[in-house]
C-alpha cells in the first residue's frame, strides 16, 4: 500500500517547515521533502536576520504539545511526530485530484549509510576532489565526500556522485563501512553491449575489470534482443550507433518494450549526434561519445550503475500539496550579457555577492568570522553595497523587485559595523531604499543616524580596479557631481531568482509560472497556484523576507488543510489516543542503563569493562545492558526487550547523537507505558573522539562522569503524573468584519469549526469596501461582495454587527468573552481561540489644502472619483501626486505599503484615459516591491515624471486661484521647478484603528504606532505573546489586499491549530509552585516573560498557566524560598548533577573531600 499523508510539502526551508508544522500541529501527517541533502534552505547559511540582527528561529517551534517536536535550535534541523522528512528527494510526478493526489518522488542516494556514519571525517580527508563549497557561497572549497551543512543535527557525510572521481579512497578510509559502493549488487548488474566494434569488445572487459560487472557482447541488435527475451536480467544496455540507424532504433524500441525502464546508453561518434538526439527522445538515458576514453567512460558507467541501484522512487498518496521550493540568489557570473564584467564580479576578489559577504561574517564561514578580503586577506574597513543587482532590470528579464535586498544590505552594513566595533565605513548605493515593512523604516533610520551607515542615492557607472587591490568606484551624486571613491570591497545586493529546478518542478506538479519564472498566483488568492489543491508557500510565489514567507506558508497550510477537509483526504479522522503512562511516583527508582558499544572508537578509547562496573554500582541502577548499534531499529528492539525484562521506571541510554534518539524515546515510552520524561540519552561517543593523546583512563573517567551526572538527574526526576490538560472550546472569536476578519472567519469555518464574527459597524466590509480597483486589475468590489455573501450564508459563522467586545477572560483553549450589541443585548461566548482583525483607516489629511480646496484629494478619494466618473481625466490639464505625506517620519515612522501602489494604480488609469496628461509624482522612495515593480516600469514608460524629494526638502504647495502650485527641487536638473496641476493627490497612508481598550481586554501589546505587537516580528508574525490570540490584516501592519488575505489565512490556521485539539497539554518542562513554601512575594510574577504566573486572590496562592509557561525557569532562579520548581530541573536534580560532575575518580590525586552536609550518597558511589 502506498504511504498516505495529509499533505506533501516540497521544500524544507523555513516556508516549508512552517507549513509542515502548521499542518502537523493540527494532527495531519505531513511528508516534507527537499532536493538538498540538508534541511533549512538558504537560512542555514544566514546567521543573522534583520531587523534584530540575531537569529531566533527556535521561536517558531510549537508552544503547546511541545514534546511532540524538537526543542533545540531549529536551524540545525527538527523533527515532529507527524512529519516525515525525505531529503535529497524531488517530486517527479503528481497525478490525481485534490484529496487524493498520487505523488511520485525520486530519492537520490547519498551513498552513506546514516546508521553507520559516525561523522569522523576521514572520507573527506582522503578525497582528492575540490569543488566550490556551496555552503560558503562558493568561497572556499569542499571535497566530494562532504558535510553539506556543518551544523546540522544528525549530520552525516554524503558523497556527491556528480563530482566524484570514483577513486574509492573514501570507501577504503571509512572505519565503519558506512560508505556503500554496492559491491554485492555489481555481480548481478548485467551489462549488454550491442556493438560491432571489435576494439570496444576487446578493451571494455579490461577497463571494467575492477567494476566487476558481468558483460555480454553481441554484434547485432537481433542477438541482443534475443538475449533479453531469453530472460537475461540486463540492467544496462550499451547501444552502439554505428549499427544501421534503423536497426539501432528498432533495438531500442524493442528493448524498452521487453524491459520498460531499462537504462540504455548510446555510444555515438561525432557524426551520430543527431541520431543520438532522436533516440534520447525515445527513451535512451544518456550518450557516451565514441571513441570511448577510459578516464571518462569508466567513471560514468560506474556512476550510472550507482544511481541505478541506489536511487529509489517513492509513491505517496496525499490530500494536498504545498510547494515551498524557495528562491535562489542571482549569480552575476551566469549572465551572458556581461554584467559580471561591468561589476568585476569573479575578476576582483573585493567584489562579493551579499550571500558571500554573509558567509564572511559567519563564524562557520571561510574566514571563521573575520572580516577579510578573500584572496589577499586585507581587513575590510571601507565597504560599499550596490543595490538591485539582478533585480529591477528589464534587460535581465527581471522586471520585479526582490523585496529583501535593501533590508539585507542594511543588516550587513550594521553587522560589519558591529564586527569591527564601528571601525568599518559602510556605504549603500541605491535606487530606492525599500524599507516597506512596518518596522523597517526605523531600522534604516537607526542605521543611518545611529550607526552611521551612509546611504547614497546613486548608481555607480564604473567599477574599476583601484590601488593596492582595492576598488575604485565612480558615480554621479545627488547633486549631479562626479565622484570617485576607493573601497576595500563592493558587495552586490543580488536579487532573488526562481530555483534552478523550477521548470522541472512546475512540470511535475502541473502548475503555471509567471513571466518572471516564479510560481503564478493570483493577487486575491495568493496562496493558490493554478492547480486546485496545490498551494504556494514561502518565497515560491513572490520573493519575500522571512516574515512574508512565514505568513505565506501559514496561508498555504490553511489552504491545504481546508482542501483536505473539503475533499475528505486520506486523513484518519479518529484522533490518536494520548499515550497512557503508568504512575510510578510511589516506586523506588529502578534505572536501566543501556550502553551502545558498537562503535569501534568507544572500544578503542574507553575501558568499557571498567565503565560498566562503575555504572553498575550507581544508586538506583538495576541493570547495565549492552545494546549494540542503538541507532538502528534492531538496536532499539533489543533495548525494548531488555526493558520489558527489567521493568525499569527510569531509562538512561548512553549512545551518540542524543538529539537523534529523542523521537524514539516517545515510542519506547509507549511500549513501556513509561513517561519519556523519565528517560534520557547521553552522548558517550563524542568524548571518546576528542583530542589526540588523551589517555584511555581520562576518557573513561569523562564518560563515567557524564553517565553519572545523567543518572543523578534521572534519579531526582519527579515521577508524578503531569497536570490535567485544558479542554478546548471548539469555537473561535474573530473581532473585526473587514477583509482580514472575514477571510479568517471563512478559513476557520470551512474547516468545520464555529466562528463568531464581531463587527463594530452595521455592515461588514471595512476599509476594503472603499477600493474600486487593484493594481493588478482585479475587481475588489465584486470580490468583497462575494466574500460578504459567503460569510453571511456560512452556517458555521455567526455574525454580530453593531457589536463590541466588553470583557474577556481565560486562556488558550478556554476564553470567556462578553459581546454587547447595539440593541443592548450581551452575549457571553466560550471560545478556544481569538483573532483580532480590527483593521485601519486612511489617515486624515488636513494640510496641503485638503478639505479646503476641492482640487486636493487623497489617493483613495481620487480612486473613487475616477471610478464614479466625477474626475474626468480627459478634462484635466495636469495631475501632481505627493507620496509619503507624513509617513516614514516621526510620529508615523513606517511605510504604509499601499500608497505607492495606489498612486501607480491611479496614475496608470489617468494615463490610460488621457495619454497626454502630464503627471508629476513627488516621492522619497517608490516602494513597488515584488511584482508590482512592473507597474512602476510601466508608469515611467507612460511619460509620468517622478521627482525625488528628501525629508529636508519637501515640496511646497501654495494655491493660486484655487489651483495648487507646487515648488520643489528637482535633483536631476539641480534646480527648483514649479508645477501647476489641476489636481493634487496626496498619499496619506493608513493608520490602525484605535484598539487600546481591546488590546487591554485581551492582554496583548501594541507598537508605538498603535499596530498590534506580535510575539516576534519575524518568526511568529501573526501570534501574540498571549497564547491563543492572533492578529491579522491592517491592524497588524500596513498591508495591501493580498497581504491582508495572507495574514488572515495564516492566523486562521494558527487558530485551527488550537481548535483541532480536544484538550491542550503542556510540555514536560513546566513550572510548578510548592504552596507551603511560597511567601506570595510575587517576584516570579514580574520576572515571567510570558505572563504565565498570577496571584490567585481567592485562594491566596500563585498559579501557573501551564499553557503559557515555556519552561525557562526564570521564576525558579528568582524565588527566594525555592518554592517554585521547574519539572525536570528541580533543585535536587541540579545539585545532584553538580555533585556528580565534581566527583573525583576512585584513585584520583586531588580528590576533594566529599562534603557530608550537601552531598548525598551520589559522589561516594561515583567514587566507588
Amino acid at each position, binding site marked *: 500500500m502506498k504511504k498516505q499523508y495529509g499533505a506533501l510539502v516540497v521544500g524544507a526551508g523555513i516556508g516549508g517547515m512552517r507549513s509542515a508544522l502548521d499542518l502537523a500541529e493540527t494532527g495531519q501527517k505531513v511528508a516534507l521533502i527537499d532536493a538538498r541533502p540538508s534541511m533549512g534552505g538558504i537560512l542555514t547559511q544566514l*546567521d543573522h536576520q534583520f531587523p*534584530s*540582527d*540575531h*537569529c*531566533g528561529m*527556535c*521561536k517558531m517551534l510549537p508552544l503547546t504539545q511541545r514534546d511532540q517536536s524538537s*526543542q*533545540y*535550535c531549529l*536551524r*540545525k534541523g527538527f523533527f515532529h511526530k507527524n512529519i516525515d522528512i525525505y531529503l535529497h528527494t524531488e517530486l517527479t510526478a503528481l497525478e490525481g485530484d485534490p484529496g487524493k493526489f498520487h505523488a511520485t518522488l525520486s530519492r537520490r542516494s547519498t551513498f552513506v549509510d546514516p546508521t553507520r556514519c559516525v*561523522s*569522523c*571525517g576521514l572520507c573527506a580527508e582522503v578525497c582528492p576532489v575540490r569543488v566550490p563549497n556551496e555552503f560558503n557561497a562558493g568561497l572556499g572549497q569542499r571535497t566530494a565526500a562532504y558535510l553539506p551543512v*556543518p*551544523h546540522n*543535527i544528525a*549530520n552525516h557525510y554524503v558523497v556527491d556522485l556528480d563530482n566524484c572521481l570514483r577513486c574509492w579512497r573514501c570507501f577504503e578510509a571509512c572505519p565503519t563501512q558506512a560508505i556503500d559502493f554496492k559491491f554485492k549488487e555489481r555481480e548481478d548488474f548485467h551489462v549488454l553491449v550491442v556493438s560491432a566494434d571489435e576494439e570496444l569488445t576487446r578493451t571494455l572487459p579490461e577497463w571494467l575489470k575492477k567494476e566487476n560487472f558481468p558483460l555480454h557482447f553481441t554484434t547485432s541488435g537481433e542477438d541482443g534482443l534475443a538475449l533479453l527475451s531469453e530472460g537475461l536480467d540486463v540492467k544496462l544496455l550499451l547501444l552502439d550507433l554505428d549499427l544501421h540507424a534503423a536497426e539501432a532504433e528498432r533495438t531500442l524500441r524493442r528493448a524498452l518494450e521487453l524491459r520498460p525502464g531499462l537504462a540504455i546508453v548510446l555510444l555515438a561518434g561525432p557524426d551520430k549526434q543527431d541520431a543520438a538526439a532522436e533516440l534520447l527522445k525515445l527513451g535512451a538515458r544518456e550518450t557516451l561519445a565514441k571513441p570511448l576514453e577510459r578516464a571518462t567512460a569508466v567513471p560514468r558507467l560506474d556512476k550510472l550503475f550507482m544511481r541505478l541501484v541506489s536511487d529509489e522512487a517513492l509513491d505517496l498518496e496525499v490530500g494536498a500539496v504545498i510547494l515551498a521550493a524557495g528562491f535562489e540568489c542571482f549569480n552575476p557570473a551566469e549572465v551572458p550579457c556581461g554584467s559580471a564584467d561591468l561589476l568585476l564580479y569573479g575578476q576582483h576578489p573585493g567584489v562579493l555577492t551579499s550571500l558571500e559577504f554573509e558567509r564572511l561574517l*559567519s*563564524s*562557520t564561514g571561510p574566514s*571563521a568570522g573575520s572580516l577579510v578580503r578573500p584572496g589577499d586577506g586585507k581587513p575590510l574597513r571601507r565597504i560599499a553595497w550596490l543595490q538591485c543587482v539582478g533585480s529591477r532590470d528589464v534587460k535581465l528579464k527581471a522586471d520585479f523587485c526582490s523585496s529583501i535586498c535593501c533590508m539585507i544590505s542594511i543588516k550587513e552594513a550594521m553587522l560589519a559595523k558591529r564586527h569591527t566595533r564601528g571601525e568599518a565605513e559602510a556605504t549603500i548605493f541605491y535606487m530606492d531604499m525599500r524599507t516597506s515593512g512596518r518596522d523597517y523604516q526605523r531600522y534604516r533610520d537607526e542605521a543611518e543616524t545611529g550607526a552611521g551607515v551612509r546611504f547614497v542615492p546613486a548608481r555607480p557607472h564604473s567599477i574599476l580596479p583601484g590601488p593596492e587591490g582595492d576598488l575604485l568606484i565612480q558615480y554621479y551624486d545627488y547633486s549631479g557631481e562626479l565622484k570617485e571613491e576607493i573601497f576595500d570591497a563592493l558587495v552586490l545586493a543580488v536579487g532573488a531568482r526562481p530555483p534552478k529546478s523550477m521548470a522541472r518542478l512546475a512540470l511535475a506538479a502541473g502548475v503555471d509560472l509567471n513571466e518572471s519564472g516564479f510560481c503564478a498566483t493570483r493577487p486575491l488568492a495568493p496562496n493558490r497556484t493554478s492547480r486546485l489543491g496545490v498551494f504556494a508557500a514561502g518565497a515560491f510565489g513572490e520573493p519575500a523576507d522571512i516574515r512574508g514567507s512565514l505568513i505565506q506558508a501559514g496561508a498555504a497550510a490553511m489552504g491545504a488543510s481546508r482542501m483536505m477537509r473539503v475533499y475528505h483526504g486520506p486523513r484518519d479522522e479518529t484522533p490518536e489516543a494520548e499515550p497512557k503512562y503508568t504512575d510510578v511516583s510511589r516506586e523506588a527508582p529502578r534505572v536501566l542503563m543501556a550502553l551502545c558499544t558498537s562503535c569501534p572508537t568507544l572500544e578503542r578509547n574507553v575501558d568499557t569493562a571498567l565503565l560498566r562496573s562503575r555504572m553498575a554500582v550507581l544508586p538506583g541502577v538495576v541493570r547495565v545492558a549492552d545494546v549494540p548499534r542503538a541507532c538502528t531499529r534492531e538496536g532499539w528492539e533489543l533495548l525494548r526487550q531488555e526493558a520489558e525484562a527489567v521493568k525499569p521506571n527510569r531509562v538512561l541510554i548512553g549512545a551518540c*547523537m542524543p*538529539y537523534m534518539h529523542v523521537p524514539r524515546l516517545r515510542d519506547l515510552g509507549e511500549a513501556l507505558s513509561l513517561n519519556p520524561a523519565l528517560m534520557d540519552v547521553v*552522548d558517550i561517543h*563524542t*568524548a571518546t*573522539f*576528542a*583530542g589526540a593523546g*588523551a589517555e584511555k583512563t*581520562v576518557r573513561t573517567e*569523562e564518560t563515567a*562522569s*557524564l553517565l553519572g*551526572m545523567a543518572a543523578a538527574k534521572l534519579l531526582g526526576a519527579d515521577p508524578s503524573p503531569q497536570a490535567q490538560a485544558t479542554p478546548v472550546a471548539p469555537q473561535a472569536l474573530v473581532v473585526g468584519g473587514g477583509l482580514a476578519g472575514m477571510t479568517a472567519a471563512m478559513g476557520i469555518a470551512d474547516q468545520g469549526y464555529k466562528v463568531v464574527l464581531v463587527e463594530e459597524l452595521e455592515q461588514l466590509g471595512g476599509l476594503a469596501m472603499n477600493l474600486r480597483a487593484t493594481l493588478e486589475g482585479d475587481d475588489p468590489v465584486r470580490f468583497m461582495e462575494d466574500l460578504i455573501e459567503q460569510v453571511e450564508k456560512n452556517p458555521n459563522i455567526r455574525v454580530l454587527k453593531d457589536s463590541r467586545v466588553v470583557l474577556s477572560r481565560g486562556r488558550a483553549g478556554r476564553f470567556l468573552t462578553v459581546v454587547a450589541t447595539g440593541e443592548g443585548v450581551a452575549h457571553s461566548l466560550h471560545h478556544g481561540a481569538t483573532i483580532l482583525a480590527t483593521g485601519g483607516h486612511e489617515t486624515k489629511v488636513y494640510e496641503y489644502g485638503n478639505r479646503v480646496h476641492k482640487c486636493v484629494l487623497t489617493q483613495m478619494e481620487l480612486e473613487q472619483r475616477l471610478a464614479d466618473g466625477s474626475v474626468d481625466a480627459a478634462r484635466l490639464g495636469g495631475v501632481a501626486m505627493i507620496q509619503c505625506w507624513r509617513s516614514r517620519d516621526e510620529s508615523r515612522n513606517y511605510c504604509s505599503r499601499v500608497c505607492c501602489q495606489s498612486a501607480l494604480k491611479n496614475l496608470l488609469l489617468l494615463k490610460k484615459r488621457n495619454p497626454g496628461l502630464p503627471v508629476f509624482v513627488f516621492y522619497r522612495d517608490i516602494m513597488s516591491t515584488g511584482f508590482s515593480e512592473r507597474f512602476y516600469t510601466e508608469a515611467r514608460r507612460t511619460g509620468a515624471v517622478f521627482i525625488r524629494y528628501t525629508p529636508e526638502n519637501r515640496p511646497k504647495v501654495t494655491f493660486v486661484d484655487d489651483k495648487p502650485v507646487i515648488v520643489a527641487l528637482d535633483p536631476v536638473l539641480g534646480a527648483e521647478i514649479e508645477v501647476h496641476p489641476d489636481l493634487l493627490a496626496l498619499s496619506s497612508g493608513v493608520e490602525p484603528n484605535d484598539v487600546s481598550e481591546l488590546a487591554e481586554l485581551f492582554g496583548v501589546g501594541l507598537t508605538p504606532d498603535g499596530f498590534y505587537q506580535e510575539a516576534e516580528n519575524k518568526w511568529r508574525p501573526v501570534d501574540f505573546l498571549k497564547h491563543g490570540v492572533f492578529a491579522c490584516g491592517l491592524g497588524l501592519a500596513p498591508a495591501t489586499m493580498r497581504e491582508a488575505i495572507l495574514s488572515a489565512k495564516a492566523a486562521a490556521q494558527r487558530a485551527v491549530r488550537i481548535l483541532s485539539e480536544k484538550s491542550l497539554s503542556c510540555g514536560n518542562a513546566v513550572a510548578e509552585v510548592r504552596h507551603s513554601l511560597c511567601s506570595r512575594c510575587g517576584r516570579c510574577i514580574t*520576572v515571567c*516573560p510570558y505572563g504565565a504566573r498570577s496571584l490567585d486572590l481567592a485562594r491566596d496562592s500563585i498559579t501557573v498557566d501551564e499553557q503559557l509557561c515555556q*519552561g*525557562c*525557569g*526564570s521564576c*525558579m*532562579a528568582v524565588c527566594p524560598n525555592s518554592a517554585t520548581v*521547574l519539572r525536570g*530541573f528541580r*533543585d535536587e536534580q*541540579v*545539585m545532584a548533577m*553538580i*555533585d556528580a*560532575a*565534581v*566527583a573525583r575518580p576512585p584513585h584520583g590525586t*586531588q580528590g*576533594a573531600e566529599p*562534603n557530608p552536609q*550537601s552531598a548525598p550518597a551520589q559522589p561516594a558511589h561515583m567514587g566507588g
Partner: protein
Amino acid sequence: MPELNVMQEAQSAPTPDAGFEPAIVAFVCNWCTYTAADLAGTARMVQSPNVRLIRMMCTGMVDPKYIIKALLDGADAVLISGCHPGDCHYINGNYKARRRVKLLAEILPRFGIDKRRLKLTWVGASEGNEFAATVNRFAAEIKDLGPIDTRRLRVR
C-alpha cells in the same frame, strides 16, 4: 553566625603543577550553547576533557546557589554560557544571567575565590568552533590559575 575564612586566594594559591587537571562545571542553555556543544562534539572538534556540561533550559534559571555549590564542592571554575544578547529563546533570560553573574563575581573575592573562576559567555547554536575554543581557553586559564582551595572556606 560562624565566621568565614576570607583569606585572599592569591596569598595561598598553590603553584600550578603540570599534572593539574581542573574540574570545570558549565551551565549551558538548551537553545544556544548546548546545541553548539553538541555541534562541537559531532563535528569532532578537539575539546578539553575537563568540562562537565549541565544543560539548563535558559541561563536565566542558573541560580547563584548552583554556582556557589559547585565552587565549594570541588569545581575549580564555573562557566555559564547562553544565547547572544537579543537572541534568547525566552526573550530576556540571558540578561537576567548577566546581571546575576556580574553581582556574584563582585562578591566571590570576598570569600577568597578568584573571580576569574566564574565566566559568562555567549555562544550561538551554530558556533561549535566558538564553543570548543571558549572551553579550551577557559580550561587553560584555570590550569594556570591552579586548583581551587575551598576546604579552608568551609564553615567551621
